[in-house]
């Protein structure tokens, strides 16, 4: 048979099985929509980050550290490459004060060459060093109620407020920062005396390279010259991925929720294909007796599959095309994200590939059965084997592997992807056995019920596969939907200050040793409380167990989250503290911490935060060597401790005992407990006035800002979760439809035997009602359980369930499901026993 004829035959079959073809196309379309939108989002993000990488970085290559560079150091690296222009910047935190209002800001100190690429859009006038001017983010102007032309102090220097920063090319997609930015010229920086006062700062050098220079070899060469791992060397490529790191994390998790929807739709697709195949078996046997070879029949079904997949892809493309303006508006209005969503060839190709490959994977069980199908069935009644051969098992394993690969690709994390895939597969297995148990119990307890109820139960127990599919998809979709609000509520409950009296109001850092007493005095006078200072000693790790601790150089694009985190952790300096005992926010989990060091007892014994130790692969008994301002200090890890980071106390990864670091250069951190608002404001003003280098974080404001992001992320995830529910509902509609078709014969038979039509309707309604109620309730319960597990073990905070949302969810889901059920069962209301006679 020639290919065009085969195509025609494939098309005719699709048309003949119209309803299952349409269901298959719609099902795939629904599954693909979320995935497609996400691909567009991801690619728009990457594309725009790459396009603006130079402006975000402020050059082609950037070298920065949380310390001052010596001239010798700089000349050494500058000898390794040619550059056309360079610029130096400093970044540091300080308090700005206007009358009673104070605000922590990040000061960007620029020379006249900055930025080497792109341009700041400033209100008022352009950036200049002619006079001491200051520009600030609109947030600062609003918070401090600044007027144009007004004088404001940074450190010891007065600056004239020149206007706001309308557009900052260096801050693309970076919403979350501790403090808003103000910018001043480097010419007046020394006059502020902030460095002399001991403020923490970053020095950064940016270089513009001749056009077409490959930055990667230069970066490698620089790593040989700049051996200090705390020095960060970035190219435009790094900048592209760095500029949207938080967003990427968010998109990764969004991707996993989209995968749930896609997975559900593939699950439903596999069912639909199998159902259609069972109805086509006889036709396939006829083809075989007429001489159509197995290969041709397989090609015929692959062609059909291709047509369906392609149509689903086109349909999802059209739906996404229609949805894109809505998503764009949502991004800008709700998420405040200046991302221009654009269709890219890459996003389309990826979605097209998934939409073609997924169904090809789905059709494998049918192909196995087509090859195994014997045309003998036309002459004899032979027992037909289901797809339970080794090939089928291999297919199952392969499908899980593909799903896992997709999850890795989507989440950029082996750990998260494995956990996710494991959970999904585990849940499907649990659902399967749970359905079996449920059906077993139903059958057992239905013995003494009326005949119609008994018959309804039998309808379920004799079709365990389809019952399990409804149960699995609906439970999984409901679980995803009910999971997220609990996590959000728990986070909000944990960190929102009014809910937790233990959370401090202010957090002070960069306090110099000579300033501690004065600030303590202020706190006692104004707030009536004692401040407890935590020392902070900057250092870098030199060795672990005598092995040189080197910088991790990441090459290539495919980098997992874990590798990325480890590299980031390794490549930065570490802050040490010392104390004689643990504080309230810390719990010792392993080993012992001896808070006082005695020289004769050997090496100082240090305590590491558990997750940090895991990430750095350090265990109890390891010896770490630190460089503290040029002095080598060795210490032995003797304990691991958990830290409650949400306590907002001065917490550290590495804790030394007293008696080791006291003489090292250090500064102090402290927090201010809750107190009267006006006193807090007064205290803030006094500190900002008297101790200009000291930075104060208003925890209330920071938390509220963070919660805004939590809200936005939760909304995004929730929208994607609703898509999973829509797919779940669609699966339910498909199953309802196919099951009703399968039951029409027996229902007609029941009617012929004297059962009233209402009774027949009741029987089938009951069957699906039981399944639906069970799966929705179980999904909600499982959502609660999963939320508890994630909140307790992943977020490591207290669990707070969102009861209101649960009620709302159930209130919405049940009527919707009820409506779907009623509409799906309508054919049963029009039963005609004549159909039975006609069909036989």
């Amino acid at each position, binding site marked *: *048979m*020639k290919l065009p*004829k085969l195509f025609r*035959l494939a098309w*005719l*079959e699709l*048309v*003949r*099985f119209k309803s299952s073809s349409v269901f298959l196309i719609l099902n795939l379309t629904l599954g693909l929509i979320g995935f497609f939108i996400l691909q567009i989002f991801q690619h728009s993000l990457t594309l725009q980050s790459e396009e603006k990488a130079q402006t975000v970085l402020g050059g082609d290559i950037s070298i920065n550290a949380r310390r001052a560079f010596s001239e010798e150091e700089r000349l050494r690296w500058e000898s390794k490459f040619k550059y056309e222009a360079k610029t130096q910047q400093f970044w540091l935190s300080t308090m700005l004060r206007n009358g009673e209002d104070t605000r922590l800001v990040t000061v960007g100190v620029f020379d006249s060459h900055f930025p080497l690429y792109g341009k700041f859009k400033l209100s008022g006038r352009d950036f200049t060093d002619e006079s001491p001017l200051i520009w600030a983010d609109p947030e600062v102007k609003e918070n401090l109620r600044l007027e144009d032309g007004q004088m404001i102090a940074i450190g010891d220097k007065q600056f004239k407020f020149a206007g706001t920063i309308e557009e900052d090319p260096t801050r693309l997609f970076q919403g979350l920062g501790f403090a808003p930015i103000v910018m001043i010229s480097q010419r007046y920086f020394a006059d502020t005396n902030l460095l002399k006062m001991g403020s923490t700062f970053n020095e950064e050098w940016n270089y513009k390279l001749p056009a077409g220079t490959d930055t990667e070899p230069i970066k490698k060469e620089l790593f040989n010259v700049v051996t200090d791992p705390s020095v960060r060397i970035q190219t435009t490529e790094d900048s592209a991925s760095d500029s949207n790191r938080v967003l990427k994390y968010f998109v990764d998790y969004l991707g996993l929720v989209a995968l749930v929807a896609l997975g559900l739709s593939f699950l439903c697709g596999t069912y639909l294909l199998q159902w259609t195949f069972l109805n086509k078996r*006889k*036709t396939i*046997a*006829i*083809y*075989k*007796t*007429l*001489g*159509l*070879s*197995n*290969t*041709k029949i397989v090609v015929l079904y692959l062609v059909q599959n291709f047509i369906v997949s392609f149509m689903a892809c086109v349909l999802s493309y059209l739906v996404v095309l229609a949805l894109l303006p809505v998503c764009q508006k949502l991004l800008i209005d709700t998420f405040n994200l200046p991302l221009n969503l654009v269709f890219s060839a890459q996003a389309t190709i990826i979605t097209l590939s998934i939409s073609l490959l997924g169904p090809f994977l789905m059709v494998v069980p049918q192909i196995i059965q087509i090859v195994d199908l*014997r*045309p*003998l069935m*036309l*002459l*004899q009644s032979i027992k037909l084997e289901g797809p339970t051969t080794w090939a089928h098992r291999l297919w199952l394993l392969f499908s899980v592997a593909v799903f896992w690969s997709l999850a890795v690709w989507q989440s950029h994390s082996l750990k998260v992807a494995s956990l996710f895939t494991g959970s999904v597969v585990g849940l499907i297995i649990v659902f399967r056995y749970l359905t079996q148990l449920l059906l077993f119990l139903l059958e057992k307890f239905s013995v003494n019920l009326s005949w119609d109820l008994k018959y309804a139960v039998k309808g379920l127990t004799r079709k365990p596969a389809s019952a399990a599919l409804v149960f699995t998809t609906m439970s999984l979709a409901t679980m995803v939907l009910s999971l997220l609000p609990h996590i959000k509520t728990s986070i909000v409950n944990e960190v929102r200050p009014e809910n937790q009296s233990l959370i401090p109001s202010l957090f002070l850092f960069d306090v110099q040793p000579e300033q501690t007493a004065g600030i303590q005095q202020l706190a006692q006078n104004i707030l009536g409380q004692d401040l407890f200072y935590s020392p902070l000693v900057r250092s870098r790790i030199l060795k672990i167990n005598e092995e040189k601790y080197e910088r991790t150089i990441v090459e290539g694009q495919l980098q997992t989250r874990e590798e990325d985190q480890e590299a980031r952790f390794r490549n930065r300096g570490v802050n040490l503290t010392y104390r004689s005992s643990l504080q309230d926010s810390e719990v010792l989990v392993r080993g012992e911490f001896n808070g006082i060091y005695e020289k004769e007892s050997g090496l100082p014994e240090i305590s590491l935060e558990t997750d940090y130790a895991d990430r750095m692969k350090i265990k109890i008994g390891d010896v770490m060597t630190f460089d503290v301002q040029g002095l080598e200090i060795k210490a032995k890890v003797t304990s691991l401790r958990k830290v409650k980071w949400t306590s907002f106390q001065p917490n550290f990864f590495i804790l030394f005992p007293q008696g080791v670091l006291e003489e090292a250069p250090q500064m102090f951190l402290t927090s201010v407990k809750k107190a009267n608002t006006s006193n807090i404001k007064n205290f803030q003003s006094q500190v900002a006035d008297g101790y200009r280098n000291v930075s104060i974080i208003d925890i209330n404001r920071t938390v509220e800002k963070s919660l805004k992001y939590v809200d936005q992320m939760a909304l995004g995830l929730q929208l994607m979760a609703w898509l999973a529910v829509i797919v779940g509902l669609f699966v339910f509609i498909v199953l309802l439809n196919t099951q009703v078709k399968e039951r029409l014969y027996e229902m007609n038979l029941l009617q012929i035997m004297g059962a009233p039509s209402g009774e027949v309707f009741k029987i089938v309604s009951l069957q699906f009602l039981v399944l639906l109620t069970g799966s929705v309730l179980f999904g909600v319960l499982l959502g609660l359980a999963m939320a508890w597990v994630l909140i307790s073990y992943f977020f490591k905070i207290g669990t707070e369930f969102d009861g209101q949302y649960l009620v709302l969810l159930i209130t919405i889901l049940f009527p919707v499901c009820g409506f779907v059920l009623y509409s799906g069962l309508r054919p049963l209301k029009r039963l005609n026993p004549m159909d039975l006679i006609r069909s036989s």
Partner: protein
Amino acid sequence: MKLEITALRKSYRQGQEKLTILNNLNMQVDTSEVVAVVGASGSGKSTFLSLVAGLDKFDEGDISVNGHSIKNLTTAEMTNFRAQNMAFVFQQFHLVPHLTAFENIALPLEILNRPFTETEITAALTAVGLSHRGHHKPGELSGGECQRLALARGLITKPSLLLADEPSGNLDTETGQRVMNLFFEQVRATKTTTVLVTHDRELAARCDRIFTLKNGRFE
């Protein structure tokens, strides 16, 4: 076309027990000959037909069509051999439900990549009295019409061997008779070698020879 069956044996396993269905069957059918295989229900008539068609494997003996043994043919080779040489008429018609009568008849030719004209198909439809039903699908035809369509489909490739399994078994007596009249008329006219499996002695009597299956053997 000549069909030769020698010492054919077929058995099935039923649990631990081996059940011999056909035992040492021998048959020779000459070109254009129409033979009937009769027997009671469960005597192995359909099994016999499925072995001749190469739809099932036999344990011992041989079947050869025009001197070509089908014993060692692979599934793919058998499929091709069947398409080139054989055709079927089933008791339950087994027409492709989503194709029209016209398309059902054209399908075997399309599978064989044999060129055909619309006139040929129309002529085949006319020969079985279905010229006015060409655009109807099997679901829209009566039982008798379906079987006539199945007959036209079977003969369109001009097969060397036509295998018919109780062609009137699903039809009422009158329709069955009309269909079988047409059946004999067509196979005689086209000189198609035919093996007709039936339990209807009257029908069998219209064939050139009768083979009676009893206890797995021809009597």
